[in-house]
């Protein structure tokens, strides 16, 4: 595998520098997917552990880390979706007892709908959407995912349209 060229146990020498430069961004990408900074930091730790043992060229590190963060967080979202949704339902019920926080409850529900929809999107659409909303430029998204800048716009547009439809459907069913 191209990304696991280092000897077992050895950690690349530039890890410290790249970690300090890119950790915040990796957390931000994962948090867009998961909606929670705590879980996002767990994902970032996993991604940097993997990166530390890899031989990804330093010049490609930022793009690699962002894509790995999106994939790892989406995997977590997919595997943990049922559990998370049960937890959020329980949290919602608690809030409802306290009462006048209807708006917060709706937001929580909407976020849960968005996360469920995100998990159902074709993987490439989800990754492109998350990277773009994390502030990664069209040129950089195109470069790390081997796309043309034109198709980045199209992919983002389709993903946003799909998520909006899910939100509208959810709103009209309530």
């Amino acid at each position, binding site marked *: 595998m191209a990304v696991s060229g280092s000897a077992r146990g050895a950690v690349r020498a530039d890890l410290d520098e790249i970690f300090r430069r890119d950790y915040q961004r990796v957390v931000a990408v994962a948090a867009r997917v998961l909606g929670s900074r705590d879980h996002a*930091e767990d994902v970032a*730790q996993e991604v940097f552990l993997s990166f530390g043992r890899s031989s990804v060229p330093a010049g490609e590190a930022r793009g690699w880390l962002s894509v790995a963060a999106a*994939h790892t967080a989406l995997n977590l979202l997919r595997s943990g979706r049922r559990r998370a949704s049960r937890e959020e339902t329980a949290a919602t019920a608690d809030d409802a007892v306290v009462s006048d926080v209807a708006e917060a409850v709706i937001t929580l529900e909407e976020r849960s709908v968005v996360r469920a929809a995100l998990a159902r999107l074709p993987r490439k659409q989800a990754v492109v959407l998350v990277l773009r*909303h994390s502030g990664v430029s069209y040129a950089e998204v195109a470069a790390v995912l081997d796309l043309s800048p034109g198709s980045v716009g199209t992919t983002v*547009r389709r993903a946003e349209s799909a998520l909006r439809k899910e939100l509208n459907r959810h709103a009209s069913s309530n």
Partner: protein
Amino acid sequence: MRHPTEGVLRRLLDEPAGVADSDRQHVADCPVCLDGLAASRDDAALVGAALATDAGARVDLDAAWRRLSTAAGGTAPGRAAAARRAGPSRAFLRRPGVAALAVAVVLAGAGTAAANDWLQIFRTEQITPVSISAADFIALPDLSAYGDIVVTGDDEPHEVPDAAAAAAETGLDVPEVSTLPQGVSGEPVYQVGGEVSATFTFSAERAAQAAAEAGERLPPPPPGLDGGQVRLNAGPGMALMWSGAADIPALVVARAVAPTAFSTGVPFETVRDYLLSLPGLPDDVAEQLRTFTADGSTLPLPVPADEVTTSPAQVNGEPATVLVTRDRTVAAVVWVEDGVVTAVAGALDADEVLSIAGDLR
């Protein structure tokens, strides 16, 4: 002037400087594009709000670095494997077709006794799709981590001048399309490829090392598996291609000697059950694949479930599989008859490919 694509309109919201002046000018004067731009802006704002997080707050870098240093200095991190599999590992994807096909064929076979010589364990008589998501497809075990794969004869397919040359090189009957579908005309281009053989030699040492690096425990290999070999043969084959307006061919008719597999040294079922137990094979896929072992004649065809739908059909009385992309731009039908696999595919609908397949001479 044509309207700019929805992708260009979307980029105009984020990076107007990245959009050509002519497109910007067009949008400014075009009510249709201005409507599209407004819809795009609304969706972007809605999704942006829904994805908003509190991650903008500063993280505690020093605490995060201490946590990473502790984990990296300890034993191999178990959960890092998921991140590595998810990373954009191009080498891993280099031969996904060969790796996936080798896994699929090995899993589908049904050999019996151990033998010193090559023993045929599998002969394709049918093809059945196995739904698999694109993410799972990438996560299929990379066989090169568990031993050596030697591929021979995988030279690029090459063009030959006519049907007679294709028949002479492959030894196969060249399919003849009696009636071309509407919009397809002219003579096809003939391409042929030789026999491909992939031999996988299992190495217990390599497998253990790969598992350790991934932080996962390798199930103990059964006795006799170390050094055991599985060989997959496929081809020769040919493809007849009629060009279309876009970059996808309007019609392709392909025919090849169907895959067969052989093993040495260990009972086939030993290899199959062991591969099924390796980390990385999704449980549901393993479960599906296990059901294909009854007579060793059904080749599971891994299909990306989020891009392609499949349905059963018949071609001249043989069971066939129809595949249609979810955007309905491409359809294909594939079936096996007397050890030869034939496929008809193109920018057509399912009825059209079935009609062409039924009329092949």
